[in-house]
């Protein structure tokens, strides 16, 4: 039966991970947009766009980091990861005793890594959006260049002044979304909703 062949060719697919991640991303984006909107006095639409961009950036960079790290880890630790991904539990091998410590350290590192990425991403995003379209005539270029230098200087000064509320807002947003995700994961693992 060709359909069956195709299915066994596809094998095990990370569909639950995709569904789960989409759900958690939506929760995180909504929560972070609320915090950014309150703290930075942004519009509703703007804050949603910022939060979505930052969260997607952090998530995809996290995937890249995970996929790169998984390829270079020692075999015993890799098989623990395989066990967790496929069977939702660790198994007994030489890493069993240190695994809780590893998990906690990785989680804390992930929090601060995400925070740094989001803060940096917000700076990049503001830089990307802050530029005005350029006129192509030489005088206009000259004028606009001078303007841009002035603006850049002003922006730098402003940035130094407004850096700490932004950092604080991103920290709060990140903490809120991490807490929400953690609570959701605990709930799901408690009630066994995963077994759908």
């Amino acid at each position, binding site marked *: 039966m060709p359909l*069956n062949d195709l*299915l*066994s060719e*596809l*094998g*095990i*697919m*990370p*569909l*639950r*991970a*995709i569904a*789960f991640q989409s759900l958690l991303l939506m929760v995180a984006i909504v929560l972070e947009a609320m915090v950014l909107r309150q703290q930075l006095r942004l519009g509703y639409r703007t804050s949603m*766009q910022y939060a*979505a*961009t930052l969260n*997607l*950036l952090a*998530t*995809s*960079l996290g*995937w*890249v980091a995970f*996929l790169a790290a*998984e390829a270079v880890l020692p*075999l015993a630790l890799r*098989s*623990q990861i*395989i*066990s967790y*991904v*496929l*069977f*939702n*539990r660790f*198994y*007994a*091998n030489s890493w*069993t005793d240190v695994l809780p410590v590893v998990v906690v350290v990785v989680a804390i590192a992930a929090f601060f890594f995400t925070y740094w990425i989001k803060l940096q991403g917000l700076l990049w*995003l503001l830089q*990307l*959006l*802050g*530029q005005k*379209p*350029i006129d192509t005539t030489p005088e206009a270029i000259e004028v606009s260049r001078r303007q841009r230098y002035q603006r850049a200087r002003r922006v730098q000064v402003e940035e130094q002044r407004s850096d700490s509320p932004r950092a604080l807002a991103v920290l709060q947003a990140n903490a809120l979304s991490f807490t929400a995700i953690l609570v959701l994961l605990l709930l*799901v*693992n408690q009630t066994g909703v*995963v*077994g759908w």
Partner: protein
Amino acid sequence: MVGGLLTFLRQTLIELGNLLSNLLPPRYFSWQTVIYMSLFSWLMSLLARLLATTAFTIGLLATISWICLAIGVGWALESNKARLFGIPIAPWVSGAILCLFLFGSWGGRWLQPALVAWPLVSFAVIAVPNLLSWDFSLKNPPPAVRQQLALLFCLSLLFSSWFQFYFRIQTWVRNYPSLVADSVENSAFVYRIPGQTIALPAGVTHLTIAEELLREQVDNKPWPSVERWLLNLDGQRQVMRQRVRSQTGRTTSLEDSLWQLDFQPLSNGDGYTLKLWAIWSGPAASPSGYYLEKTCLLMPVNRGGLLPENSPAGYSTTQWASLTCDLETPRLAGHPRGVGARGQV
């Protein structure tokens, strides 16, 4: 007669003309033109191949053909407003065609780079018209477009990561084929579409090899020698593992070190029940792991029929061993020798 033929010919010509005017693009600047350019370029590359020109010419013509095809199909979908859940699909189809072209000629396992690159290539298809004008000078789109492009880039990176995760799981399964035989019902990450044929774990093969060895060593042998064979249990286990290792050595995989072969004779009336175990010590769905068990019956039998006519007394009491093994290898949770080997889980 001649007049009839002429009218028929005229009719045919008019029909042909109608057909052609249907095929011809309404304007020169339209997607049909681009598709025809692609077709023309492809035919030219075929012609070039027939004439045995340099590989560069053929490659260039084929490349132009593919790029025109991608542009043409994307344009056609866009002008017909093809939407899937409100999302324009034109850039994704164009990106897929470009990926087919870029990676399809690689051969071997080309699907993996093609699928991983697909979202990123599609993003490039969306971004390039916004960032480049017709004379290849950089454009500076308005902030709203820039914001959307940044969002799209992050999204396509996420899609690409998902594809890569899928292929990483396939690599795991290639390295540890027995994982497929376990249930992934509890997983929070993966899902297996039901109805697939699931391969047997490698332990079944190991048990079959062990059974063959057992047959060579004890089947149809005099019972006393079998009793002697059973005295050196540790040695026989070593031999058995050696045999399995040498027989599976050709298709060695990472998981071979996670299977352990063991057996234990239990006395059963006159003879023995031999339990052969293939014990899996890798990742498993059940908390205490699992093992496969094959049960064999080793019994002494009298072979009256084989006795010579004038045999001395006592010869008739010589017994021979007969080995019968079950075909099925039930899968049991835990460890056959209790919890000692695995520790608490």
